[in-house]
C-alpha cells in the first residue's frame, strides 16, 4: 500500500469518524449520564488524568435512568406514537397523490418527459423552509383557502386547518412528493408496455390490466418511495413546528424543545437514541428492498 492510497482512504475516513461516529458515541454517553446543574450540564465527565481508575469510575456512574424516565413520562411515548402515526398517514397520502402523477408522466410523450422530470425536481432544489412557509398564508384561519371557501359560501366559518395534524399532513405530502414520484416513475418507465397490450388482448379491461399488471410491477418503486418519505418524516422538525402548532406532538420537535428550552441534555440525548433505534427497522427494510431491486435489474 503506497502513501497516496493511504492518504486517499484516511482523509475521508478520519473525517467521518471524527464528525459522525464520535459525536454519535458522545450522544449515547450523555444519554446514560445524569443531569447536573453545571457546565456542561451533565454528569459524569470523563477525566483521563485520573488514569485507569478514573475511566472505571466513569463507566460505573453511567446508567439507564433517562431511558426509564422516557417510559414513565407519557409525553415521550405519546410523541413517539403520534410521530409514527403522522408519518404513516402522510406517507400513505403522498402515495395516493404521487402515484397518478408518476403514472401520467410515464405515459407522457417522450419529448415531454425531461421537462416533466425537471418540473418535479425543481421544488426539491428550492428551500424546504420556504416551501413549508408558503402554506402558512394559504391555510391560516384568515388565509386564502378560507377566504375562498367563505366567498363561495361552502362554509360559514373559517376552517381550522392551521395548527392541527391536517396541516402537518399537507406539509409532508407537499414537501416530500418528489421523493415519491421519482422512484415510482422510474419503475413505470422501465415497464414493458407490451405486457399491458397482452393483458388487454387476452380480454382484460384497461382498469383490470392496470390492477393486475401495472400496479404489482410498480411495487418496488412504491415501496422505495414510501420509505423515502416515511424515514425523514418521522424525525421531522420544521413542518410540525411551523404548521402543527402546540397540539401536534412529534418527536423531532420534542427533542428540540428538550434541548433548547428545557436544557435537559441527557434526556434530549436519550430521546435521540430511542428515535434512532426506531428508525433502524425501516432503514434496514429499505436497504433490503433496494438490494432486491438491484438484483432483479441484473
Amino acid at each position, binding site marked *: 500500500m503506497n502513501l497516496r492510497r493511504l492518504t486517499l482512504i484516511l482523509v475521508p475516513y478520519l473525517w467521518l469518524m471524527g*464528525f*459522525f461516529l464520535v459525536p454519535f458515541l458522545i*450522544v449515547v454517553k450523555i444519554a446514560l449520564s445524569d443531569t447536573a446543574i453545571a457546565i456542561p450540564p451533565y454528569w459524569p465527565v470523563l477525566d483521563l488524568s485520573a488514569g485507569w481508575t478514573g475511566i472505571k469510575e466513569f463507566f460505573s456512574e453511567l446508567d439507564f435512568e433517562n431511558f426509564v424516565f422516557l417510559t414513565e413520562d407519557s409525553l415521550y411515548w405519546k410523541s413517539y406514537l403520534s410521530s409514527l402515526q403522522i408519518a404513516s398517514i402522510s406517507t400513505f397520502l403522498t402515495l395516493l397523490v404521487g402515484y397518478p402523477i408518476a403514472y401520467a408522466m410515464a405515459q407522457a410523450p417522450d419529448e415531454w418527459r425531461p421537462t416533466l422530470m425537471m418540473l418535479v425536481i425543481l421544488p426539491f432544489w428550492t428551500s424546504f*423552509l420556504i416551501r413549508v412557509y408558503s402554506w402558512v398564508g394559504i391555510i391560516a384561519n384568515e388565509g386564502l383557502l378560507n377566504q375562498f371557501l367563505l366567498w363561495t359560501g361552502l362554509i360559514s366559518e373559517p376552517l381550522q386547518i392551521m395548527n392541527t395534524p391536517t396541516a402537518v399532513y399537507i406539509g409532508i405530502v407537499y414537501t416530500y412528493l418528489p421523493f415519491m414520484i421519482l422512484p415510482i416513475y422510474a419503475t413505470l418507465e422501465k415497464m414493458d408496455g407490451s405486457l399491458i397490450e397482452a393483458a388487454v388482448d387476452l380480454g382484460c379491461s384497461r382498469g383490470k390490466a392496470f390492477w393486475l399488471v401495472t400496479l404489482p410491477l410498480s411495487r418496488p418503486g412504491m415501496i422505495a418511495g414510501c420509505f423515502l418519505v416515511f424515514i425523514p418524516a418521522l*424525525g421531522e422538525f*420544521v413542518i410540525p413546528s411551523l404548521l402543527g402548532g402546540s397540539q401536534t406532538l412529534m418527536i423531532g420537535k420534542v427533542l428540540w424543545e428538550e434541548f433548547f428550552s428545557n436544557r435537559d441534555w441527557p434526556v434530549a440525548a436519550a430521546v435521540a437514541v430511542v428515535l434512532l433505534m426506531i428508525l433502524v427497522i425501516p432503514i434496514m427494510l429499505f436497504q433490503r428492498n433496494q438490494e432486491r431491486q438491484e438484483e432483479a435489474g441484473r
Partner: protein
Amino acid sequence: MNRRMSWFNVTSLTLGFAFLYLPMLILIIYSFNSSKLVTVWAGFSTKWYGELLHNQQFLDAAWVTLRVGVMSSTAATVLGTMAAYVMVRGGRFFGRTLFSGMIYAPLVMPEVITGLSLLLLFIAIGLDRGIFTIVLAHTTFSMCYVSVVVSSRLMTFDRSLEEAALDLGCSPFDAFKSVTLPIITPAVISGWLLAFTLSLDDLVIASFASGPSSTTLPIKIFSAVRLGVSPEINALSTIMIGIVATGVITTSLISKNAIRRQRQEELEGTKQ
C-alpha cells in the same frame, strides 16, 4: 413511442403540478402586495424588496449563509469525491464496511440527531461555536451526498479507459488526473451544487452548530416566520426561488447540450 394522453393522465398532471407550484406562485404574487396584511390584496408594489435591502440583519445573515455555503460545499466536494473514489476503486481495506456505513448513515439520519450530536462534540472538545462550526457540520453531511452522486458516475464509466492509461505508462495519479477526473467532472459539479443548496437550505443542523454571532438566513427566516406571515419574508423567498430556478434551468440546459454533443460525437465515431 407517441401515445395520446388520456383525459385522466392530463388531469392528474395538471392537478399535480398545480399542487406543486401554486403555493410558491401565491407566495411570489403576494410579495408584490403593498398591504402589510398579507392576505388582503391592496395593489402592486415593490416596497418590501426595498425594505429588505435596508434590513441589515437579513443582509448580514445572507452574507454568513453564502460564505458557509461556498466553504462547506467546496470542502464537501473534495472529501466526497475522495470518498467516492475509495468506495468504488479503493479495493479492500480494513474497515470498509464501517466506511460505507458512515457514508450512507448521514443521508437517513434525522437532522435533529445530526445537529445534536455535532453540538455535543463541539462542546466536548471546547470549540467555540460560529461560522467555522457550521462549515464543519455542513461539510460532514453534504460530503455524503456528493460521494453518492460521484460514485454513481464512477460506477457507470468504462474502466478500460483508466487501464489503458496505466498500460501506456501513466502513474495512477496521472491516470486519475487526465482520464478519470475529466469524465467525472459533471458529476463533481452537480455534487458541488447539491452541497451548496443543502447548505443554503439547512435550518436544523445550523441552529445546533451556530453561535450567537453567526446567524444564517434560514435561522433568521425561521424565527421571523414563527410569528406568522410577513411580506418581507415573501419578498426574500421570491428572490431565493428566483435564484434557484435560474440556476437549475441553466444547468439542465447546459447538460442537455453536453449530452447532445456527446451523442453526436459517438454517432460520428461509429460512422468512421
